[in-house]
């Protein structure tokens, strides 16, 4: 199970254009999902996506970090995803191209504990021997 979703892309456009596409409300609404974004730290906004059973289609976000023409991150909460984090890191490449490193993270807290502990099932046995049994014997 992945700890986060990572996508690495190159775009045939200069950093300024990619940054505008990430931070301009109309641009973002066009290529991502309709929203009322403002590039202001702490700004709350929503994306409207397709509703599905158990999900009203609204993703609530808050701008978490913003470094002009370099980095943008916002929280992403909707449906099963609560307080996950989406981030975009951009850097210039030769020939007016731009590299984008995208990441959606924040699932690990919920999932990994369970998975790791399941894999380390012996850890559970260990815990019984180390904690529960001595407690029991001490009674």
């Amino acid at each position, binding site marked *: *199970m*992945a700890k986060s*979703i990572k*996508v690495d*892309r190159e*775009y*045939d*456009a200069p950093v*300024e*254009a*990619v940054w*505008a*596409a990430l931070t301009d409300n109309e*641009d973002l609404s*066009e*290529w*991502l*999902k309709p929203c009322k974004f403002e590039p202001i730290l702490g700004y709350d906004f929503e994306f409207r996506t397709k509703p599905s059973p*158990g*999900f009203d289609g609204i993703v609530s976000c808050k701008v978490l970090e913003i470094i002009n023409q370099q980095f943008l991150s916002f929280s992403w909460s909707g*449906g*099963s*995803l*609560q307080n996950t984090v989406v981030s975009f890191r951009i850097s210039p490449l030769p020939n007016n191209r731009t590299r*984008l490193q*995208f990441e*959606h993270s924040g*699932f690990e807290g*919920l*999932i990994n*504990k*369970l*998975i790791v*502990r*399941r894999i380390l*099932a012996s850890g*559970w*046995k260990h815990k019984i021997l180390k904690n*529960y049994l001595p407690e029991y014997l001490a009674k």
Partner: protein
Amino acid sequence: MSDVFKAIADPTRREILMMISESPRNINQLSEQFAMSRPAVSKHIRILRESNLVRIEHDKVDGRQRNCYAQLEALAEVDAYLKKLEAFWEGRLDNLAQFLQRKPKQ
């Protein structure tokens, strides 16, 4: 699906799940193990059950006892969900490429 995340977000429910994934236990046994009231354990079990992480069967010997079995296959749904989410972002970032092509260069 949404319930799986909620179900495993709680540390007590993770503990319960870990415990019964080792071997099935009934609600009384779980209450003892967690020093928790029976209704409190039942509530956790209900949430785990609703998200398909736990299955309950009546004990074959003592029909009054209900045994809890872990069904960690439900976690495959989490994996499937994240794969779908990844596909969503892949699609959106493809959109971004097309958008940048369309947009007149400044």
